[in-house]
C-alpha cells in the first residue's frame, strides 16, 4: 500500500483522493480508527430507561448491542454469537431478559455471559460438547463502556483514556453545555444512507467555509452568515473539533458580496418554522465532531446526535437521534420538532450536505491520483476567532495520519 499510495509532500494542506475509495485504507480504518483506542458513541441513556432495554447499533461496521443491566449499569457486547458468528439481535430497540441466538439457541445473560447451550450433555448419551467445554470461556465479547450525563460511549480497546481526558478540556466544556446532567427525552430517529466516504461527513461539519456559501437557506433566512461572530475550537490532538457561532446583525455588507447565493428580503411564509429562543449560554450554534463517529448538533433549539456508521469505502449510514430534555414544556418540544425541519434527510440545510457529499465522492473516487487543496486560513491548524478557515479539517487529518500511519 505504501508504495502505491503516498501522502502528498505538502502534508495536511493536501488530501489525497485515494483515502476516500481504497478498500485497503477502509480496512485499516476499521482496525485502527474504529477498533483502536477511541470512544465511539453508541446510545443515549434515554433510549434504554429500564433493565433489559437494548439498542442494536454499530461501531464502524461492527454490529454491537447496548443493554441496560438489572443493576442499572450499561453493557455493550458484540452482536455476534460466540458459537458461529450469527448477528443474533435484529431489532433496533427492544427489551429482553436474555439474548438467545436463533440458530442453535445459545443463550446469554444481559452481561453477555453464556448461560445456555442446548444439548451440551448430548442426547441419549450421544454427542454433546466435550466434557471440558466451559461456558465461561465462550461469552459474548464485551466492550469498554463510558457514560457521561446521559450519553453512552463504547470501545473495542481495553486500555484507553478516561472519557473526560479523551475529550480534552475545551471539547468537554462544549459537551457539558448540552449534556449538563439533566435527564434527556428521546424525540425520534432519522436514518439516511449517504453514498460517500464517512470522512467527507466529518470534513463537512469541520468546514465552516462552506456554511455561508452552500447553504443558501441558512444565509437567506439569517441563520448563518460568514460575517457573524464565530470561532473554531479543537482539542490538543486535533481529532475533535467544534464550529461555534452566535447571532449577529443581518445586513448585506462588503464582506459578504462574495456570497453569490445571498438573497435579500427573503421571508418565510410561516415564521413559526424558525422560532428560536436563547436556551444555552453564549452561542447559538455549536457543531461538535468527536472522533471517531459522532457529531453533536446544537442548532438553536434542535439537538441531535449524528452517528456515522460506515458501509464500505463509498457509503455510510447517518443515524440521527433527536432529543430534548425531560423537563421541556410542550412549547419547547414543539419548537425542537419544528426546527428539526432544518436537519435530517429532508433538512432545509442538511439536504445540501448529503447531496454535495455524493458529488464529492463522484469526483474523488474517479480521480484517486489527485488531491484536494486545504489552505483556507493557513497551512497549520489552531483555534481561530473566525470561520474563514479549513483549520479543523487540517487538524483532523493531522491526527488521522498518525493513527493510520500514512
Amino acid at each position: 500500500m505504501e508504495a502505491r499510495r503516498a501522502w502528498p509532500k505538502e502534508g495536511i494542506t493536501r488530501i489525497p483522493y485515494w483515502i476516500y475509495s481504497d478498500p485497503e485504507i477502509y480496512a485499516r480504518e476499521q482496525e485502527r480508527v474504529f477498533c483502536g483506542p477511541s470512544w465511539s458513541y453508541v446510545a443515549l441513556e434515554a433510549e434504554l430507561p429500564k433493565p433489559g432495554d437494548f439498542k442494536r447499533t454499530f461501531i464502524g461496521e461492527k454490529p454491537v448491542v447496548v443493554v441496560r443491566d438489572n443493576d442499572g449499569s450499561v453493557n455493550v457486547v458484540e452482536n455476534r454469537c460466540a458459537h458461529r458468528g450469527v448477528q443474533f439481535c435484529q431489532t433496533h430497540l427492544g427489551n429482553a431478559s436474555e439474548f438467545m441466538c436463533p440458530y442453535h439457541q445459545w443463550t446469554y445473560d444481559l452481561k453477555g455471559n453464556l448461560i445456555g447451550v442446548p444439548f451440551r450433555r448430548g442426547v441419549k448419551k450421544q454427542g454433546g460438547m466435550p466434557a471440558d467445554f466451559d461456558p465461561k470461556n465462550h461469552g459474548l465479547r464485551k466492550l469498554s463502556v463510558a457514560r457521561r450525563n446521559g450519553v453512552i460511549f463504547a470501545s473495542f480497546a481495553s486500555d484507553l483514556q478516561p472519557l473526560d481526558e479523551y475529550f480534552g478540556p475545551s471539547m468537554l466544556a462544549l459537551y457539558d453545555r448540552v449534556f449538563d446532567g439533566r435527564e434527556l427525552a428521546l424525540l425520534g430517529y432519522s436514518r439516511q444512507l449517504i453514498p460517500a466516504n464517512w470522512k467527507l461527513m466529518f470534513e463537512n461539519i469541520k468546514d465552516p467555509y462552506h456554511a455561508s456559501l452552500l447553504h443558501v437557506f441558512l444565509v437567506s433566512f439569517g441563520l448563518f452568515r460568514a460575517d457573524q461572530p464565530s470561532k473554531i475550537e479543537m482539542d490538543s490532538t486535533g481529532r475533535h473539533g467544534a464550529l461555534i457561532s452566535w447571532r449577529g446583525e443581518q445586513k448585506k455588507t462588503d464582506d459578504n458580496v462574495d456570497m453569490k447565493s445571498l438573497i435579500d428580503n427573503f421571508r418565510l411564509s410561516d415564521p413559526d418554522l424558525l422560532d428560536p429562543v436563547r436556551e444555552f449560554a453564549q452561542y447559538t450554534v455549536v457543531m461538535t465532531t468527536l472522533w471517531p463517529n459522532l457529531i453533536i448538533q446544537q442548532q438553536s433549539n434542535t439537538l441531535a446526535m449524528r452517528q456515522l456508521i460506515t458501509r464500505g469505502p463509498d457509503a455510510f449510514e447517518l443515524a440521527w437521534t433527536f432529543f430534548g430534555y425531560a423537563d421541556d414544556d410542550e412549547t419547547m418540544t414543539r419548537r425542537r420538532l419544528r426546527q428539526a425541519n432544518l436537519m435530517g434527510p429532508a433538512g432545509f440545510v442538511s439536504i445540501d450536505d448529503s447531496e454535495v457529499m455524493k458529488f464529492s465522492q463522484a469526483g474523488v473516487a474517479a480521480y484517486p491520483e489527485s488531491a484536494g487543496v486545504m489552505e483556507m486560513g493557513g497551512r497549520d491548524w489552531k483555534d481561530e476567532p473566525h470561520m474563514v478557515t479549513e483549520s479543523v479539517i487540517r487538524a483532523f487529518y493531522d491526527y488521522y495520519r498518525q493513527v493510520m500511519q500514512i
Partner: protein
Amino acid sequence: MSAGELRLALEELYADYAACLDEERFEDWPAFFTDPCLYKIVPRENFERGLPLATWLCESKGYLADRVTAIRKTAVYAPRYMRRMVSGIRVLGWSGTVLEVRASYLALETLQDELTRVFNTGQYRDKLVVEDGKLKFREKLCIFDSLLVPNSLIYPL
C-alpha cells in the same frame, strides 16, 4: 355524496395529487391542503414507538410554500425524477365532517447515471374535509417503511 361518487372523487384526488408532484408543479401542491393543516413524513419506527419526530413537518399552507421555495430556490441537489404510485385507497369513515382515508404509496426515484430505484414506500393516513366543494387534506401523514432514506428527501411524497 353516494359511496360510488365518493370513491370516484377520492380516486381522482389521489391521481391529481400524485400527478401534481410527479410533474413537479410544486407551486400547486399547497392547494391540496386546508390552512392550517398537518403534513408529516414520518419514519415508521418513530410512529410505532410514539416518538414525535417527523422527517418533514408542515403545519400550515405557509410551511408547505416554504418547502416549495427551498426546492426551487435554496436547496442544492442533483437532478431527479420522482414518480408516485398510490393504491389500495380505503375509506375508514366520516367522523363529523372529517373523512378518514388510508392508502399505500410507492415513490420511485430516477437519478442521472443510475437505474430507477424504490425511493420510499409507506402508508398515507389522511384526514379530509370538503372545502369550497372540493376534498382537501386537513391532515396527511406519510408513514414510511423505508427507514434508511437513500441520501436525501427533496420532493414531497
